Each structure stands twice: as structure tokens, then as C-alpha cells.
């Protein structure tokens, strides 16, 4: 019966977190030594009745107080730096990571692969491939937690949250729900299985082939009647959706917003919430007509629309040409392995949005 102190390191990120953890354990042992040590010694040496020299001239102790205020401050800043830098890398998925969709529902995880395969409480991943999970919840707040990846992220209803990792060690690991979500919170668990890439490709072909999200998105795009207005019909005046994702959309009233997953979701479910500049509020709301999975499929399909160049809007009257996004998202080589240097896809934060007024919506971290 082995007693591991650390769970297995099944992803590249896990090593970094354990590195920070070791630093913290070291510094804590140092501080414990600096306090418990002297206390034990003083208690032994200066116990009452022990004949020992107790003459103590009370001189000012400002220097001592100063040292044990400044040193903890610097140690604290160092620890902050360690923790924050690892966290910052953890929250920046590379551009071309393989995107899976996760929907948390009361007491189960529904996962869909880009190739269409669906799983419940099971997650099969290829080894060495950067994977990004786009997650939402159908009811309460859950939290996607894989101890071996040292990764956890709350899954909120009505919003998209993402995590990413690079699985590195084949094997089978735990998947937990970490945010209390009701009666069977402790049964909302699953297995994450990491397989070598070849084995993963073979696994994809076994079992029933689900429709890939992009194909399902295209199908729904037609069935729900989106093509009626958005595909260049002269009769209806609707914004062009090519290259929409990632661009900055000018809104009614002079403000602009970033077209990310949340904007796409809000535009489908609550079209009158943010009306594009130069258009009327004609679009019907699809609230309740579209399930979370179908919504994710349509959004994935919308992302593939457009001429493949990000940040540049074609057409769309009155949008005064493409409003250049904060920074051009450079291309990145497909399978990025080394976590140490973040993928060049990392763009400086947009900072102030392109046009005046507060940019709202925008991608959740």
C-alpha cells in the first residue's frame, strides 16, 4: 500500500503546480523552524525553577521588528509571483488546441469530441495534444476537476468557461465535480483516460459515430431558419456572419463589443440584448428552442464561417469596414507541446477596446 504525497503528474501543467507546491512547503518548513524551534528551546531553557541567567536589559527592538516585517513581505511577493505566473500560463490556451465541449448537468458530465463522438462521465484524450475544454452548465454551478492535471474550473449556467491541458502520461485518472451541486454531488464523477495518439484515433472509430459538432451546427443553421436571413437574401436585412467570431462588432448607441462565444450565445438566445449598428431588432429569440449541446454546435459552426482570416469583417453595411481587432492573432503551428514557452498565439490584452465606451461581453477567462 503506497502513500503518495502528490497525485500522478498526468499533464505538463501538473509539474509546474507541483514545483510551486514544493517551494511553498520549503518556505513553510523554514518559518515553522524559525518559530517552533525557538519556542521549544525557550520553553525548555527558561522553564520556571531552572537556574539560568535571566538578566534581560530591555533595549529597543525596532531593528528586529523591522526585519521580521520586511522579510515576510518579500517572501510573500516571491510566492505570489510563482503562483500567479503558473496560473497565467494555465489560462492561455494555444490558438489551435483541440476543442471539446463539456456540458455539466445535475450529476453527470456530457462530453463531445470535435469528431462528433459523445461520452457521459468518460473522457478519452490523445497523449501530447493540447486540449481545450469549452464548458457550460444546464442548471447549477459545477466544477470540472481532474486532480492528476492539477486543473479545476467552475462550470456556470449561462456562461462559457474554458480550461486547457496537454495530457502527457497514458493511464486512467479521476474526474470529480468540486462545487457542491445537490444530492448526488459525490456521484458526479468520471474517468479520464489518456491514450497514445494512434490508439486514440482507433478508439474514435469504434462505437457509434456521433455527428461532428460542425456538421451538426451546419444542419441546425439550416433547420432553425438562420439561412433565411443571414445568407445574403435581398428581402431581409441581417448582419453577415462570415469571419464574425473574434472580430469587434459595432453596436447601436456607439459602443462596440468583442464577438466571442458569449456574444454569439447571447445573440442567439437574446437577440435584442445587443443590436448591431445599423440593423433593426427583427431576430426572434431561440430561448428554449435550442439545447445547450445544439447551441454549442451552432457556435462551433459559426466559428468556422468566414474566410479564415480572424479579426476582419467582410461586408455588412454601415459597419464602416473592418474595425481592426486589438492584435492580429498570428498563426501557430498545430500541435504545441512545450508548456514552458506559451504559444505565440498569446496576444497582449486588448486593453482599451477599439472604439470608445466599455467593451462588454467578451470571452470569459
Amino acid at each position: 500500500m503506497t502513500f503518495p504525497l502528490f497525485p500522478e503528474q498526468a499533464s505538463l501543467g501538473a509539474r509546474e503546480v507541483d514545483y510551486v507546491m514544493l517551494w511553498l512547503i520549503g518556505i513553510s518548513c523554514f518559518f515553522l523552524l524559525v518559530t517552533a524551534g525557538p519556542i521549544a528551546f525557550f520553553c525548555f531553557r527558561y522553564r520556571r525553577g531552572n537556574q539560568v541567567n535571566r538578566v534581560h536589559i530591555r533595549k529597543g527592538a525596532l531593528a528586529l521588528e523591522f526585519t521580521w516585517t520586511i522579510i515576510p513581505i518579500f517572501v510573500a511577493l516571491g510566492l505570489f509571483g510563482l503562483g500567479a505566473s503558473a496560473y497565467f500560463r494555465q489560462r492561455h490556451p494555444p490558438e489551435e488546441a483541440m476543442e471539446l465541449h463539456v456540458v455539466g448537468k445535475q450529476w453527470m458530465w456530457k462530453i463531445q469530441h470535435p469528431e462528433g463522438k459523445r461520452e457521459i462521465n468518460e473522457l478519452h484524450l490523445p497523449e501530447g495534444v493540447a486540449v481545450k475544454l469549452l464548458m457550460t452548465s444546464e442548471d447549477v454551478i459545477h466544477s470540472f476537476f481532474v486532480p492528476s492535471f492539477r486543473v479545476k474550473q467552475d462550470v456556470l449556467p449561462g456562461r462559457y468557461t474554458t480550461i486547457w491541458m496537454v495530457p502527457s502520461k497514458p493511464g486512467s485518472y479521476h474526474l470529480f465535480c468540486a462545487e457542491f451541486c445537490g444530492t448526488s454531488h459525490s456521484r458526479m464523477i468520471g474517468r479520464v483516460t489518456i491514450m497514445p495518439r494512434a490508439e486514440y484515433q482507433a478508439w474514435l472509430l469504434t462505437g457509434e459515430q456521433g455527428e461532428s459538432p460542425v456538421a451538426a451546427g451546419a444542419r441546425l443553421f439550416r433547420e432553425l431558419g438562420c439561412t433565411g436571413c443571414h445568407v445574403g437574401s435581398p428581402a431581409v436585412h441581417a448582419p453577415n456572419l462570415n469571419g464574425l467570431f473574434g472580430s469587434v462588432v459595432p453596436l447601436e448607441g456607439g459602443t462596440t463589443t468583442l464577438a466571442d462565444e458569449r456574444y454569439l450565445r447571447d445573440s442567439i438566445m437574446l437577440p435584442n440584448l445587443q443590436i448591431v449598428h445599423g440593423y433593426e431588432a427583427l431576430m426572434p429569440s431561440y430561448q428554449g428552442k435550442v439545447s445547450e449541446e445544439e447551441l454549442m454546435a451552432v457556435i462551433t459552426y459559426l466559428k468556422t464561417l468566414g474566410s479564415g482570416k480572424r479579426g476582419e469583417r467582410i461586408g455588412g453595411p454601415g459597419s464602416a469596414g473592418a474595425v481592426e481587432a486589438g492584435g492580429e492573432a498570428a498563426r501557430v503551428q498545430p500541435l504545441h507541446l512545450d508548456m514552458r514557452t506559451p504559444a505565440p498565439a498569446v496576444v497582449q490584452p486588448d486593453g482599451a477596446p477599439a472604439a470608445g465606451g466599455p467593451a462588454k461581453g467578451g470571452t470569459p477567462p
Partner: protein
Amino acid sequence: MKTDKRASIAAHPSVVIYLKVWGALMVLLLLTIGIAHFDLGDWSVAVALLIAGVKALLILLFFMHLRYDRREVLVFAGAAYLWLMILIIGTLHDYLSRNWLPRL
């Protein structure tokens, strides 16, 4: 017992001062309503709160005797609004900085 050095009875407001303060408050009220008719975009909130702040200060200093009371009362009153600012700014700075991440 602890002697209170600065008796608060010495500098005492009079009805005349109160009348002037009341007049100022009425003028500021009219100003607030007037300003609302112009569209200053995002600045309309800032201006409205500024005027409300001035009105609040007038009430606090004169009607609530802060100007004539001992310093510790001033600290207690100030602390309340400082903590309110901590609550509002602490919550808002999370919503403000949610869009600063580069696009996924």
C-alpha cells in the same frame, strides 16, 4: 473618567447657517434635474454622482454636526463610506477586467 477636551457646544451652528445649507441643497437639486436633460453619454453618471456627493457632504457636515463634533466622529463617518467604496470597487474591478484577456 475620560475628560472630553473639545466640548462640542462651543462652535454651534445657527438656524441661519442651516437656511443657507438648505438653499444650496435646493439649487443643487435643480442642477441635478437640469443636467439630466443633456446626454453626456458615460459622463452623465459621473456628474450625477458628483452633485449627489456634494449634497451628501453638505448634509453630513452641517445637518449632522460633523463639522462641530470631535474628530473621532469624523473618522467613524468616513470609515463607513470608505468601506462602501471597498465593496463596490472590489466587486466592480472583477467585472471590469474580465474582457482584458486576449481572445481565445
